Structures are given as C-alpha cells and as structure tokens.
C-alpha cells in the first residue's frame, strides 16, 4: 500500500520553468511577419466623437493600417454580457472600438497596426480625434437619481433591480414585521470602494490568422468561455477557432473577460492577414482592464435585547461602470445569498440596483460579490455588538449556526452542508492570545496611550465551487457550472489528464497530480496535467469562483474511477478470474485470495495492442467525465486582527493577524497556505491601501502603481494561518475551495480592528481604505463634534 499523496505538502511541478526564466507568457510570442497594435484611448469620460483624422498616422513609418470605430462598426459586434439578471435589464451596446461616442476615460477610439510596437505607439500620437465632451456621471448615488445620464440613448442609468425576499421565497419571515418587532434596530450605510485587480502580468494577445484555424494566444483565465464568446460575438465558426492561455501571470477575476483588445486584435489580424500582437502598458491596464467592487450598501439589522438577531434588510447600489462586461451585472447578485453569513436570521430581504457611471466597467474581482457581503455583515455585527454593549465574539457565538445544526437551510435559500464555527473560533482565539490582547487594550485605554489597540473580528463563510448549473440557470446566468476531465493511460503507463479548468498560479498541475496519483496508484511524477488550450482541452468552464478543485477535481476523480472500472474488466480477462474477484489497490489489480496481479501499465499496453481483450471491450482505457456539482461549497473561518492606531497621526499598523480557516479536506497544505496568504494581502489592501479614484472630470487619478497602492512586502506582516478540517459532504473529495476565502474574510477584520481602537473617541464609522489621513480626519471630526469632557477617560 503506497503512502497517499493527499495532504502532502509537495513542492510544485509548475516551478521549474518559472524560476529559471523559461516561462511562456503571451508577450513572448513572436511569429513571422507579426504586426503590433497600439490603442488610442479617450481622454474624456463622456464625449461625442465628431471626427477622427488618421491620415498622418496612416503614412507614418512602419504603419500598415489604422482601425477606427467606423471601419469596424459592422464587423465588431457587441462585447457580450452573459448575465441578464432580470428580463428587463437595460444595457448599452458595447463596441470594442467606440463608434460615435465614448463613455469612460480609456475607452478605445482607434487602433494603429504597425511593424513594431514602437512604430505603432509613435503613430498613435499622430491621430487627431475631435471630441465634443459631455457631462459625465461619476457618483453611484447621483447615477441612481438619473439626472445626468451615462448613456443618453439608454434613457436611464438604472440597469436592473434584483430582489430576494425570504417571505416570498418561503425561507423566512417578512422583513418589515421582523424589524418592527425587534427590540433594537441598527441602521448603517457602508461604502465598498472601487478596486483594481492589478494582476502582475499586463494583458497581452496574439492572433494568428494564417493557419487553417484562427489561433488566439491570450492572457486569460477563461480560454473556453472566451472562445465561445468570441465566436458568438464575431460570427466565427467554433471549430475553426483555437484559444490558448499560455502561462498567465495572475488573474484574480480580472482576466475573466472578453476584452475589446482581444476583439480588435482579431479584426486587425483578419484585415491584414498577418499575425497581430497587443500588449498593454500598466497604465492602460489600471485604466481600462475591468475594475472591482464599487457598491453603496444600506443595511438594517434587528435584534432582541439579549443579542439574538432577527431580521436583515440590505439595499445596494452597484456601480457597473460604463458597460456590462461578461458577468458585471451578476457580481452583486452572487453576494445576495451571503449577507446573512453564518448567522440564523428569521427574515431577510435583499435589493440591488445596478447603475451605470462614466468609468471603467466593473466585473469579477477575487470574491465577486461575497467580499462585499461579508464586509457588510461583519461590520454591522460589530456595530450591533457596540450598540448592545456585548463582546463581538459573544454576539457571534450567540447567533451562528451550531455545529450540530448542519446541514442548515439558510434564510437566503442556501443549504450549508457542514461547518464548525466553534472549533475555528476557539482555535483562532487561542492562537491570537485574545485575552492577553484585550487586557493590553484596556491598559492602553486607561493610560491614554497615543497608540491605541483595536481587535477586529471576522467570522465568515462563503459560497464557492461555482456552481450547480441548475442554480445558475435559476439566476439567469448564461452558462452552467459543470467541469470536464479526461484521464488517459498511455501504452508505457504514463498518465495524462486533460482538465477544463485554467490555472494561472494556483498550482493545479501539482494538486491534480496528487489526486490522480492517489486514485490510480501511480507515481506523482508520472502524471501529466494538460490545460489551457482549447485544442488540447476541448471542453471546460475554466477557473474562477474557487471551482477548480471542487468541481474540476471531482471531474478528474470521476474520470479516473471510470479508468479503473475499465481496467478491472481487462484485468479479469488477463488473470482469468471473475471480474467480481478483482481487487484494485495502489495501482495493482489482483485476484482476491491469490497473489496474481497485474499493473495498470501492463493493462494499458495490453489494451493498446488489443490482441486479446474481452469480447466487446473497446480497446481504450481513456475516460471522460463531466461533473456538475449538486451544491456550492462553503469554506468558513475565523479571522482576528490586532490593529495599532496612532491617535495623533492616524497611522494604523497591522500588528498581528491570525486566521483559522476550514476548507474541508486539504490536498496540499503548502498550496492552501499560499492561497490564504495571497488572499489576505488583497483583502487587507482593500482595508488599508487601495482605491481606484476618479477626479471630477472622470480621469483616473490612481493611474499607476505610484498612486494605486498595491502593498509591498514592507507593508504587510507575516500571518498565522491555522486550519480545521470539516469535510464537505457535497463532493467525494470533501473539499471546499480556498482561492477567495482570505480576501473575503480579511477586509472587515481590519476595519473592525481600526474602529475597535477608536470607538472610544466617539467614532462609529470609517470608510475604506483606512489611510492615515482618513483615520486622522475621522478622529478629528469625532473629537470636534463630541465636545466631550476629555478624551478616552
């Protein structure tokens, strides 16, 4: 019996080429006769295009062609939105190159195609665009009021309004009654600032039209979805298009898109008959690659005097930006089911209105709707605790779903399969040194220390493992959530696995190799994972929503199990035994009660030769499986942050961060920790550093890494990551997914920590990011408004 690979902290197969500079990011591609694209982008947030004079550019050195919106108006189609959340959803046409008007700063108005990137860029500066600028709408609430329209032809900024009501759904009571009957109602407004995913690899696309197929290499996390969408948008035959995602340098949802640049690259390649490449600059990326978050949240929570929560009412305004991207409209809806979090509410109502503004469009970004929901509920639980004079942990304990109550049907109609909030919390409190830190906090308060200590709590769960196809259908999403795999055994015994998920840093090759090695009893090194090329992996729904292990891994297991079943039939024949007597263990097929056995490799060679196979047996062990999950998966955890806040300068420092997460069974703990660390960094960055800021004319002020503050190693501490393992019961691997969990949990932990340090001064709310200036001015306002006798006595 070989030692299982499951749970082993194996170093990654992916690393060798990445640490030696043999990586294959899209910008590396060089093809004979390749041309380069440069984009001309609107400097206005909202304007009519009166005229474009490209004559000087067209005759500049090295320039082959210039494409304007008029040139491609009939061929470019409209970039797709795959999620009409209501039947009456309003959306403007979404051209890749703007034709007669621009709706956000950075929108493409022309494209130069030239013999070198430098020549294209030089010529792009010679294009003269005559704009007639219009008033932009740049504020979410103003947009909802419909005074200034982002798209005048649309007649409204309101794209759609989506409602969930537990009374209507039959999952709970009526919210107004519930709140009216409550002893206490806390009402709050929170702001989810606009963020930029800022993956480290700028987007790049190369299109080769010269072969029998149209081949597209692109920095995407969704090669299969992209292929289908491009074919539908441009009227290309699916069997003549190949999309390849080579090495992809990060995505985080930011590369879950059908981009104008990809469409334009195809149009340019078809027009010139030559391979065409476009690689964006970082400035272009921050400006025009889709943004994330951006919501105004209004919540009311009801509770009885003893702290038992009753009802939760949520009203959101979500900023779509100027257009609906691939899943823009659905991102807030994904969060709709998570505002109730881990708590037992009697009544729940959620209403979201999606609105347009004249800014870059928003779309999926790590967590996609769930960080927004978790932020709101974890903030308001702390606010409720403050109102009731309760410890924030005690309040949560009182209201969370107890371990023995699983499976649990929530007020928002989800069924949580398993969870153990008690175990995660107890472990986190111990690792954190909660009691000692509370004592220190008290000491600093009594001493009026300049630097005060705050403790931030976040107990979260999230829904991932996207997704049961029927549920997606009920939400009007355009595709399903299944995943596909093929497992092949080669004549010499090597195993190849084709997966439809699309890794961009997650280490799937390693994780899946562990799973297959374990399942088939072959060595870890013997398994090859193939992905990311629609010619190699013909079927799949790619990587996002923490689905690759939960859904993709299960498809692989199902396919591997089919291989074993086929092999058993051949083994019985080879060993002249009854099929029922065949036992499979660690790669060996043996006959019960004897020492006769044959290996998978021997079976595979025999099948290849096909000289002596059972009657009717198809000469192949290779097997497909398509897995559609029955439910989402629900990782959960308890996160604790110790924040030091300097009450004079407003500077806050994350002194200690402890999280205990439950992601079900762990395949590779090294990779799980890595995902948590990375997720924490992004969630903490939302709380303390990042915001996409536009000025009053609609220009992106945070247009480079000088101003958009992606944290460096110097800005973050080390984290203490603990784990509990409560296997999921909705998939045979017992896994839950981990890619987004850290990001979802951490943001409210940090902000709750900052508030916990400064509530004593009369502060009840603070916006993100909690920059020194924001903390300082919040403190100042509270002190001035308070007119209290003394401070922190």
């Amino acid at each position: 019996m070989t030692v299982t690979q499951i749970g082993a902290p194996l170093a990654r197969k992916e690393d060798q080429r990445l640490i030696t500079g043999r990586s294959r990011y899209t910008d590396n591609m060089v093809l004979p006769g390749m041309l380069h694209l440069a984009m001309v982008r609107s400097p206005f947030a909202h304007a009519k295009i009166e005229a474009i004079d490209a004559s000087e550019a067209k005759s500049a050195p090295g320039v082959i062609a210039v494409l304007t919106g008029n040139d491609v108006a009939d061929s470019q189609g409209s970039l797709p939105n795959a999620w009409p959340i209501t039947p009456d959803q309003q959306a403007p046409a979404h051209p890749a190159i703007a034709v007669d008007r621009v709706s956000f700063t950075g929108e493409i108005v022309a494209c130069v195609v030239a013999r070198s990137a430098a020549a294209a860029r030089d010529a792009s500066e010679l294009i003269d665009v005559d704009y007639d600028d219009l008033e932009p709408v740049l504020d979410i609430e103003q947009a909802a009021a419909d005074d200034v329209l982002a798209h005048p032809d649309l007649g409204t900024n309101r794209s759609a309004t989506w409602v969930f009501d537990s009374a209507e759904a039959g999952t709970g009571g009526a919210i107004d009654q519930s709140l009216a009957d409550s002893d206490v109602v806390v009402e709050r407004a929170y702001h989810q600032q606009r963020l930029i995913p800022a993956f480290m690899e700028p987007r790049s696309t190369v299109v080769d039209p010269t072969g029998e197929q149209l081949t597209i290499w692109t920095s995407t996390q969704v090669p299969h979805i992209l292929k289908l969408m491009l074919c539908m948008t441009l009227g290309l035959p699916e069997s003549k298009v190949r999309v390849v995602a080579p090495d992809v340098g990060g995505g985080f949802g930011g590369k879950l898109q059908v981009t104008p640049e990809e469409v334009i690259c195809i149009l340019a390649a078809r027009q010139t008959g030559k391979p065409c490449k476009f690689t964006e600059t970082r400035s272009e990326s921050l400006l025009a690659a889709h943004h994330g978050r951006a919501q105004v949240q209004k919540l009311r929570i009801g509770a009885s005097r003893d702290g038992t929560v009753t009802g939760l009412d949520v009203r959101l305004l979500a900023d779509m930006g100027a257009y609906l991207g691939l899943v823009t409209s659905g991102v807030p809806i994904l969060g709709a089911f998570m505002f109730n979090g881990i708590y037992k509410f009697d009544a729940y109502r959620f209403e979201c209105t999606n609105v347009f503004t004249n800014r870059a469009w928003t779309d999926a970004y790590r967590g996609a709707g769930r960080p927004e929901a978790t932020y709101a509920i974890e903030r308001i639980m702390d606010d409720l605790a403050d109102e009731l004079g309760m410890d924030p942990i005690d309040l949560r304990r009182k209201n969370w779903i107890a371990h023995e109550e699983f499976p649990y049907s929530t007020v928002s109609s989800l069924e949580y399969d398993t969870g153990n909030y008690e175990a995660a919390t107890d472990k986190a409190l111990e690792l954190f040194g909660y009691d000692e830190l509370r004592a220190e906090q008290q000491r600093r308060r009594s001493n009026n220390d300049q630097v005060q200590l705050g403790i931030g709590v976040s107990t979260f769960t999230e829904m991932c493992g996207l997704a049961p196809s029927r549920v997606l259908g009920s939400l009007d999403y355009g595709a399903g959530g299944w995943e596909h795999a093929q497992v092949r055994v080669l004549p010499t015994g090597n195993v190849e696995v084709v997966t439809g998920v699309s890794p961009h840093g997650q280490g799937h090759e390693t994780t899946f190799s562990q799973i297959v090695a374990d399942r088939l009893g072959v060595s870890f090194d013997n398994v090859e994972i193939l992905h990311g090329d629609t010619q190699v992996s013909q079927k799949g729904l790619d990587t996002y929503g923490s689905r690759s292990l939960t859904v993709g891994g299960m498809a692989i297991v199902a396919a591997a199990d089919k291989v074993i079943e086929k092999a058993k039939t051949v083994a019985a024949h080879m060993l002249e035994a009854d099929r029922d007597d065949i036992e499979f263990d660690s790669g060996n097929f043996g006959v019960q009660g004897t020492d006769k056995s044959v290996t998978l490799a021997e079976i595979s060679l025999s099948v290849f030769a096909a000289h002596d196979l059972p009657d009717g047996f198809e000469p192949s062990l290779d097997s497909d499986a398509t897995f559609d999950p029955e439910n989402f998966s629900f990782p959960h955890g308890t996160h604790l942050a110790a924040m030091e806040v300097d009450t004079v300068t407003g500077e806050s420092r994350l002194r200690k961060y402890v999280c205990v997460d439950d992601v079900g069974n762990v395949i590779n703990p090294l990779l799980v920790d890595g995902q948590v660390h990375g997720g924490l960094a992004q969630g903490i960055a939302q709380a303390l550093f990042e915001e996409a800021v536009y000025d009053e004319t609609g220009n992106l002020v945070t247009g480079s890494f000088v101003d958009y503050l992606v944290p460096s190693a110097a800005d973050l501490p080390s984290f203490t990551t603990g784990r509990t393992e409560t296997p999921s019961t909705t998939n045979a691997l017992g896994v839950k997914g981990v890619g987004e969990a850290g990001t979802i949990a951490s943001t409210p932990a940090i902000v709750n920590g900052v508030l916990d340090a400064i509530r004593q001064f009369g502060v009840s709310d603070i916006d993100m990011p909690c920059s020194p200036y924001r903390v300082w001015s919040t403190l100042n306002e509270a002190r001035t408004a308070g007119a209290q006798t003394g401070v922190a006595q």
Partner: protein
Amino acid sequence: MAQGTQARTSITVTVDGTEYTDDVEPRLLLVQYLRDVLGKTGTLIGCDTTNCGACTVHVDGRSVKSCTMFAVQADGAEVTTIEGLSRDGELHPMQEAFHECHALQCGYCTPGMIMQSIDLLSEHPDPDEHTVRNGLEGNLCRCTGYQNIVKAVQTAAKNSGGVV
C-alpha cells in the same frame, strides 16, 4: 522588428556570459533589449513607473530595474538575468529556496524577486524578517502575500552560508 525609426547606435553588452554587439535606438530600454533583441524573455515587464521590479536584473553585480535604464547605458557592462543564474544545470540556492518554500504562484514577479533577493543577501547575508521585507519593497507580488518569499530568502541565506 523590435524597434522604431530613431537613428541607432552600437553597443556591446555581455549578458549571461555571452557578449553581444547590436545597433539600438537610444530610447530602447535595457529590458526591451533583453527581451526583444536578445530574445531573453525570462526578464519581465510589469509596470511603466519603475514600481514593480519584475524587470530586475544584475548589472555589474548590482540589482537594477532594467526598465529604468537604457540599453545604451549598459554598453560595456556585464548583465546577469534570471536565465544566467543556474550553473552547470544546478539551480542557484535562491531558486531552490523559492521552490522549496512555495514562494511563487503565477511566477510573474519571480525572476525580479529572485534577482533582488540575491542582491539583498549580498548586502545582508543573514537578514531578519524586517530587513528582508524592506529590502524587497521595490518588488511587487500580487499572488503570494510575500510570506513565503520572506521565508525563501531566509532559507537561502541559511543554506548558502551567506555567500550567494
């Protein structure tokens, strides 16, 4: 064709042990020279404001952001890129440490991070966590949250006895 139409000038640069002589535009960045002229695509471009460090190489033994240097400034210099690190097929201790410690995910920041980490150790052979974090302030990573990178640098320091 990598370049535009500025009048060119001749440079001679030794990169990863091989001497190259090329005619380059004065405005050509060192990173563009490495990637587009020499085909050394191991060195990467992540930003346009010298913040991210993905382009970090060694020039005459010190770490330099190759996006913030012109190729003509490297005339006569010795440049080492990520592709020149391993000796006789053996990984550099820093590369080995990154692998052991899971200090990379998508890999895009990795070449620059490794090159800068080596430079850091040359100045601080036995750095504490604080020194490592400050020393890597100019190299952004979006995937790892830096924790395993810090671990890798300290592991490499231990494994190589401070001599990298």
